[in-house]
């Protein structure tokens, strides 16, 4: 066993922390106005965080998953919206193309994705297919040398800022999920329409929209992986994506914990500091243990992935535990702040709203429990 990070991993974590400090100045305003962090994403790409996992052959950083999740946590601690933009782009967009793309697809898309010129999005959810991802209604009809795509996708992160869409769609409905394909769709293909901006509870600075496909002609060469392998690609993508969303949840929890800790050492009640009240000190202790647990689960999942061992179970455990803990910890952080916690200035109410989404997207906590229970019952 070795719990030490490498010098590079420490440097990456520090670089992410230094970058994240700059997010703090306008995070409340962007959240309030639901404004996309254009300038920050530009800097994020200049620093190489947008293609950090991609092979250097395509211009990426060639970094390991541990480095990546350390960066996601540091950024989420200050601004979970920026963390999710980065996470979807890296874990689902870049990873999907790198893991399953042909050499031609990789050469066409990855160099522009690592520079942030093109942002990736992952289009799986539908109005009637969320957790039940097998019931895809979006059709990709095989028309010989192209697919004709029709349907609607929901809750798409990076839908308006992104331009490389990995679209999951049904080609052979009779084969159910074995008939699903994954296609790379360029946003500017005729027939692609971006729906209105979703007015979300949290992560408001990231852009979420529905996306409509109306007779979109997608060349066959844009299919990722083999015919009918789309569902497998989607599930594999989410398996990795979960690790970074779990890390995002750890970051949100850590951010709330640090603010609560600071506040409890400054604010007095009944003649002593909040931290000197056992009821508050115990809350802080519980937060600390939960964060440490969650982080260790995330690190183990990342380590398994880096060492090419199965990480599905570890990733599901990390996501479920980190997300549910983040919800509890942010709620307690608001409680420690009292009335101040309920106003925007103190950040913790925003972190609480952000934590909620980590229990829902990229597989709800309940879906993670399905994944976990299936694996332990099978054993």
């Amino acid at each position, binding site marked *: 066993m070795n719990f030490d990070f490498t010098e590079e991993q420490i440097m990456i974590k520090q670089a992410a922390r230094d970058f994240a400090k700059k997010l703090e100045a306008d995070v409340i305003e962007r959240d309030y106005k639901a404004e996309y962090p254009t300038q920050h994403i530009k800097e994020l790409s200049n620093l*190489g965080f947008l293609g950090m996992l991609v092979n250097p052959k395509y211009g990426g950083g060639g970094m390991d998953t541990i480095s990546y999740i350390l960066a996601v946590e540091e950024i989420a601690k200050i601004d979970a919206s920026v963390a999710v933009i980065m996470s979807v782009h890296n874990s689902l967009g870049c990873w999907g193309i790198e893991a399953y793309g042909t050499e031609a697809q990789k050469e066409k898309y990855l160099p522009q994705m690592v520079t942030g010129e093109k942002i990736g999005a992952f289009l799986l959810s539908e109005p009637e297919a969320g957790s039940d991802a097998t019931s895809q209604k979006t059709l990709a009809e095989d028309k010989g040398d192209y697919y004709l795509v029709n349907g609607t996708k929901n809750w798409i992160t990076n839908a308006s800022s992104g331009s490389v869409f990995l679209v999951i769609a049904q080609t052979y409905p009779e084969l159910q999920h074995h008939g699903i394909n994954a296609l790379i769709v360029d946003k500017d293909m005729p027939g692609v329409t971006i729906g209105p901006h979703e007015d979300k509870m949290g992560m408001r600075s990231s852009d979420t929209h529905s996306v409509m496909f109306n007779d979109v002609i997608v060349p066959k060469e844009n299919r990722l992986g083999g015919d009918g392998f789309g569902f497998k690609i989607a599930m594999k993508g989410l398996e990795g994506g979960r690790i970074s969303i779990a890390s995002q949840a750890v970051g949100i929890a850590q951010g709330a914990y640090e603010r609560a800790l600071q506040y409890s050492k400054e604010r007095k009640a009944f003649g002593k500091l909040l931290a000197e009240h056992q009821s508050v000190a115990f809350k802080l202790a519980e937060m600390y243990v939960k964060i440490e647990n969650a982080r260790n689960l995330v690190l183990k999942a990342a380590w398994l992935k880096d060492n090419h061992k199965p990480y599905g179970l570890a990733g599901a455990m990390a996501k479920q535990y980190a997300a549910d803990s983040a919800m509890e910890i942010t709620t307690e952080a608001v409680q420690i702040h009292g009335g101040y916690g309920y106003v925007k200035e103190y950040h913790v109410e925003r972190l609480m709203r952000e934590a909620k989404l980590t229990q829902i997207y990229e597989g709800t906590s309940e879906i993670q429990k399905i994944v976990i229970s299936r694996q332990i019952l099978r054993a």
Partner: protein
Amino acid sequence: MKILVCISNVPDTTTKIKLTADKTAIDLANVQWIINPWDELALTRALELKEASAGKITKVSVISVGNQSAEPTIRKALAIGADDAFRVNAEAKDAYFAAFQIAEAVKTEAYDIILCGIESSDYNGSAFGGMLAEFMDHPSVSSVSNFEFAGEVVKVNREIPGGYEVVEPALPFVAIVQKGIAKEPRIPSMRGIMMARQKPLKVVEAAPAEAMTEFVAFEPPQPKAACKMVDPANVAELVELLHKEAKII
């Protein structure tokens, strides 16, 4: 043209300072180490100048006096963009020792401009830059808040009370820089971090020299006194306390 930036490996500025039991040294256990903030800005400016020089500045090097534990800090400078680095393998006992070692290490390297921060955030001695210039037999300009090339001449802004003066030093020279030298330190990019290990980091053995000073004792500042709250309605009590207890009126 080549630029050398001297960097000092210092505790993170947010470190809670603890003293050893005999109070003659800082307890360095669990300390995070960083590039001295003034030196980091000097490096940032050096890299900006190199990028804007259209090939005229061929190299930016960094140098530090320290044992092997200083290497992560030196590699961070390489990750930020320095081309190569030297480490003089010795503990930097005082400014005289560090300046002497750096002068010995780079005397034959023909750097045109040597940059260093005006002070380091650990001991804040502000002695190193002048000593280095003396050992190198170079002119030096202190409190430099900006410098740029005007044709073949280097124009240096030097902060003075109420304004600044512009100096044109002869090359080579030592610039002892203030914080305004660059807007903010650079964050290393992912590519820079990955490249850092491949860049040359030359370890130079220390030349024979003794430190000129030693630390006899450190004394932490007195803890802040507790704040006494006075009811806004009770002005008389406030005046009484300011007069008799605080003795400021």
